[in-house]
């Protein structure tokens, strides 16, 4: 739902221009925070960025609909807030260059998807001690989807408000979008549960709190 990439020309400039500016500002601040990061970390971050794009391609057949995943919840837990926002921006930029999502709205698309993803690690850390890593990663992904999806709906509502769309039409669009939003939360969380179950068995050190090699400064 949150990665229904908004194309060019459907949103008012009042929404996408500040979105682009804010995303670029966050990227600059994030780059400063990652100044000492090793090239290996950048390579790992990029591999997970490619995985986000690959996951978006996979079609999960669910009845009459095909669902496309994002995996930004698990990737947010694995990389942390700063890196995952960069990953989301790069993924959106590459998609925009092939016509999936707009070039002018690349910042807003990154903010929508990234807003949830940057919370993932904090939520994971908060719940991992009490409920264990599998449940914590599932909850972190659910929160990611709730936040990103809600922001996506808010952007849509704001765009329709600016364009003076009547309330009954907004309700109609919400009637289409809201069930997809709920389905997205459940599906992404269930997939994240599987990711967590496997990573904990095979490479628990990749998760926060483990002795992960990529976290060590060079």
């Amino acid at each position, binding site marked *: 739902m949150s990665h229904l990439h908004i194309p060019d020309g*459907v949103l008012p400039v009042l929404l996408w221009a500040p979105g682009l500016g804010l995303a670029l500002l966050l990227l600059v601040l994030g780059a400063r925070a990652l100044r000492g990061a090793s090239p290996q970390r950048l390579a790992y971050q990029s591999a997970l960025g490619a995985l986000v794009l690959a996951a978006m391609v996979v079609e999960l057949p669910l009845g009459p609909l095909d669902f496309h995943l994002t995996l930004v919840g698990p990737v947010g837990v694995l990389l942390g807030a700063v890196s995952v926002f960069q990953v989301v921006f790069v993924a959106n930029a590459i998609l925009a260059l092939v016509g999936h999502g707009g070039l002018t709205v690349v910042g807003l698309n990154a903010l929508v998807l990234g807003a949830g993803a940057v919370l993932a690690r904090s939520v994971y850390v908060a719940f991992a001690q009490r409920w264990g890593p599998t449940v914590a990663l599932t909850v972190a992904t659910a929160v990611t989807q709730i936040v990103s999806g809600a922001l996506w709906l808010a952007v849509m509502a704001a765009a329709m408000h600016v364009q003076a769309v009547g309330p009954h039409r907004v309700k109609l669009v919400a009637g289409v979008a809201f069930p997809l939003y709920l389905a997205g939360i459940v599906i992404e969380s269930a997939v994240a549960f599987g990711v*967590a179950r496997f990573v904990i068995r095979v490479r628990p050190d990749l998760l926060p709190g483990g002795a992960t090699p990529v976290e060590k400064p060079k």
Partner: protein
Amino acid sequence: MINTLAQIDYLASAGRTPWHRASALSKLLLAAGLVLLAVFAPSLLLLAGLYAVAWALALTARLPWRLTLVASGYPVAFTLLFVLARWDGTADTPLRLLLRPLTASLVAVWLVGTTPYPDLFAPLSRLLPRSVGDGLFLTYRALFELMRRTSGLWRALRLRGGASGPVQRRLTLAGEGFATMVLYGFERSERLYATMRLRGHSGRICGCHHFAEGSRADLLVAAAGLIVTAGAVLLWRMP
């Protein structure tokens, strides 16, 4: 989408038209101008003209029309939400709503279909912070390999019964499959890092330096830019 992306990527390197010979910088400027015009143009006639120009660019670049149609048609589904919300009984509003994103995505497909990715990312990476610019190169390099592996994994999951049974089981299995990709991504990053060090990585992926080198083909890009500008001036106030 993987096939579409792979074909566009191949055409960008294998194409031999003047658009392919023009510098990445001039094409980026033309594309940026076209996208901004498509976003801001108030006239339906101008929007239709821009869409025709975008098709002319794609077809003269010898991009297959079906591939171009599929790749640039993504915004339709999303835009229909807005068409639904703003339906006023006329054809003008839906046409306006559809032509803007379709023109922009068609221009993007033309740009990517005529420009190899190192040339395309090099100027962009100079505008972005270092880690983001390098991320563009490394993510795109990893993309096709990850997509191929994900596609293989998906096929294997289906063949071994991973796509049957209760939904919860299917989704958990899919998650476990993606987790193998996470581990693969980590191992790949270790190998890539070793390779980068062996090749004398200096701390920045610069991309090629010839993205701004002009050629005679750039005159064609400039001519297209002039035609578009003249058309925009003439048609801006038209209905």
